[in-house]
């Protein structure tokens, strides 16, 4: 039995600005089921980090528990990583981010880890607008415990066993917009043309970026009757193409005028979005909620960048924290001497 990935790479494989090939962003060999959408999302994260020329050691990846939360082991092996308690990734991410604001935070979670056990933490991390990218690998079931319906399973979707789900699903993107996420997107593991630029945009966004990525469970939720199978999701996907243009590059793509919205991010890169209609303003929360609801009613699932708020204050702004990571503060920064103590004391007299 041999199951290992050869070290050889394509002799013509490109290197990015920091001298890495795409394979330098890989992690261990996945032990998820063959064909799992999660592996595609890992590959999309690898592509995004490679294309953004992010140095792996500048990334911290965090996760909770579940199939999804195993995946940080399968990408960016040169990054910082923390596999936390079930549903508690947001608080660990908050702690890490407060201590070191210079790292790029990627949280990976699943529908159980986010919408069930982790719902409380999930809502609050969005409300606080922590500067991170939070990816939900959403397959609508608990694959690690034999495929029970999860909280995001659509009403009337049929489980592999044959049961029809009677409950309302939690729509994570609508929740995110409601409670304060400042970048909200939805995508599909089988559509890297959309997913990779979305991840790149999320990583470039300053504030909390939520990506709800539908990721079919090949083992328990890819049958006929399931709404989250590869075939069914493709059939109902209303995809809005996204084009991420880094700061240094000229815009070359052309979409139909009127349907296109360009969004300039904080780092100078530009997002070009092709919207489903002209009225939709992705910088307006109500407009986004209306568009999502409208499509849901028509049995369509709107994917792409759904909402963005570029003028928000992230957690560090609100808390007025130190401008540098705590581990770079010197004794002089932390203990500025008796002159400062005197001035503080004087201020209290």
């Amino acid at each position, binding site marked *: 039995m041999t199951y290992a*990935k050869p070290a050889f*790479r394509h002799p013509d494989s490109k290197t990015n600005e920091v001298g890495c090939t795409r394979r330098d962003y890989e992690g261990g060999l996945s032990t998820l089921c063959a064909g799992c959408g999660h592996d595609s999302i890992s590959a999309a994260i690898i592509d995004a980090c490679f294309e953004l020329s992010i140095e792996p050691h500048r990334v911290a990846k965090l996760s909770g528990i579940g199939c999804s939360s195993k995946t940080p082991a399968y990408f960016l092996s040169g990054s910082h990583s923390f596999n936390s308690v079930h549903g508690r990734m947001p608080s660990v991410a908050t702690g890490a981010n407060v201590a070191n604001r210079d790292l790029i935070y990627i949280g990976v979670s699943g529908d159980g880890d986010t919408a069930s056990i982790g719902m409380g933490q999930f809502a609050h991390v969005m409300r606080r607008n922590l500067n991170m990218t939070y990816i939900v690998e959403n397959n609508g079931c608990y694959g690690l415990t034999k495929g029970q319906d999860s909280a995001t399973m659509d009403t009337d979707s049929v489980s592999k066993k044959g049961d029809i789900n009677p409950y309302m699903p939690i729509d994570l993107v609508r929740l995110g917009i409601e409670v304060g996420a400042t970048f909200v997107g939805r995508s599909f593991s089988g559509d890297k043309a959309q997913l990779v630029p979305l991840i790149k945009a999320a990583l470039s966004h300053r504030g909390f970026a939520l990506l709800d990525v539908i990721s079919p469970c090949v083992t328990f939720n*890819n049958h006929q009757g399931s709404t989250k199978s590869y075939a069914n999701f493709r059939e109902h996907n209303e995809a809005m193409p996204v084009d991420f243009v880094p700061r240094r590059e000229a815009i070359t793509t052309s979409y139909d005028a009127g349907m296109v919205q360009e969004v300039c991010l904080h780092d100078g890169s530009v997002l070009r979005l092709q919207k489903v209609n002209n009225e939709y303003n992705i910088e307006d929360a109500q407009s986004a909620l209306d568009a999502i609801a409208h499509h849901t009613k028509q049995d369509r699932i709107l994917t792409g960048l759904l909402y963005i708020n570029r003028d928000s204050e992230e957690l560090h702004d609100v808390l007025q924290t130190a401008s540098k990571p705590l581990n770079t503060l010197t004794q002089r920064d932390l203990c500025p001497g008796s002159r400062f103590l005197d001035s503080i004391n004087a201020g209290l007299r």
Partner: protein
Amino acid sequence: MNNVKPTDLRDPEYFHKVVDCQYACPAHTPVPEYIRLIAQQRYDDAYMVNWESNVFPGILGRTCDRPCEPACRRGRVEEEPVAICRLKRVAADNKGSITDRLPRIPRQKNGKRIALIGGGPASLTVARDLAPLGYQLDLYDSQPAGGGFMRSQIPSFRLPPEVLDEEVDYVLNMGIESHFDTYVESLKSIIDKGYDAIFVGTGAPRGSDLDLPGRQECEKQIHVGIEWLGSVAFEHIQKVGKRVLVLGGGNTAMDCCRTARRLGGEDVKVVVRSEFARMKASPWEIEDAQEEDIPILNNHVPKEFVHEDGKLTGMRFDQVDVVYDASGKRNLVPTGEEIFFAADEVLIAIGQDNAFPWIERDLGIEFGKWEMPQVDKRTFQSSNAKVFFGGDAAFGPENIITAVAHGHQAAVSIDLFLSGKPTHQRPAPGVNLISQKMGVHEWSYDNLVTVDLREKVPHVDKVTALKDRKVEVELGFDINAAYREAERCLNCDVQTVFDGAKCIECDGCTDICPTDCINFIDNADETALRRTLRAPANDATQDLYVSEALVQTQRIMVKDENVCLHCGLCAERCPTGAWDMQRFLYSVTKAG
């Protein structure tokens, strides 16, 4: 815009081409198949796979020109190809007796008589293929033993006579009537003997001479290389002068200089007209010569043989610069400097030609340019339907493995011809494609690809080697080195076979592929596709494997075969079995 068409897997040549080594081999020996057998220490089986295909595994394992190795995929992902040639020798060195596996020769002949002229690899291959079918075969050769140029031109320190004898005898013992020491002076005399077919495998026996001032005067000290090597092989010559110049940059020159070192040559030089990079000799043979303290002097154009009192004293050369003009044409421009090398003997190894003084021109065999017979490139039949050509005699000097390939095809033609069938309707190759899946993560071949560098073949020490021209220089791989080398083979014959109907487009294969071969992409014309793949497919000689439009997205699967490692991870990662690893066995159909 012309969209690419789906790959037609019913064409056996598609997967054949993916097995680069086998495809590059003139005889299409199934290389990965026998390398796996060597790794399993099944040397007899490995030998027979070779013997079926190339007739002379032990000989070729030492002397082949190895067209397979530059083609080897390993060389495209790592620095060095698999040492295919020397692995073949491992099979020959370690086999037991295989005589019980040789084809049975019918006692009752079929009544058809065939003459083979020349006892080299081409004729012997024809004999090997036709004798089991009941043909009666008469072989004529001017030398005292079979093997042709394999015997007269390849020195014993590269090819021991025992190895040669063994493999030549496997064929001759099939009841071939051999007439050695018989120079055929007239083809007509053979035709008149009433043969049903005649095969001409007489090689390219005429060594080129160098007509320079002094050539006539020093006749005794100047030799044509291939004739000199023949005289050494048959022990008519046993020593050479202390100072020897060898002219020429091909493999014959390398054999001449190394032989001279063993016959008493102390100061042996190879002098070549052109630059080092353009030398025709195989790199490994140049290397072996250099290791025996033989300098190779390039950019020297011979000018005259210098002699005193009718005795050669040396040679004068013009030193030249190699200049390429705008059209890329090479010119040797004299620098004005003249160089003199003292020498007791000179060996001229500057090429060899065909010569058919013994074929009468009124036998219905048409001759074309350069007095070469007109031979059909597929059937090897001449314009006299009864006369077939093969090996160097057909299209000029090549090598042993090409002669073998010709022999197989000529045998097919002769058999068709004598069965009253048209020789242009060639039998299709034998093809077998079978899944290698054994279980979860379990394949019948060793699919783990690791970065292991090419093994070096050990040599006998130089002092011993130079004492005796019969001591074989290369010792061959021992069993452990052979195993390590065999494991470097990527098993390119285990094909990635894609069934689009089963694909759910999960991207699992694209994501796992270590060399970015697999793409799911919108169809386009081939040039555009090659540019837009995950890794650009710049080598147009390597095919793209293209599927039908897929059900869910109408995209196509495009796989660039170029640097596929055949590691099987795409099939491992496929949830539906749309990818499978299937062993592809391709065998050129033999006569009968």
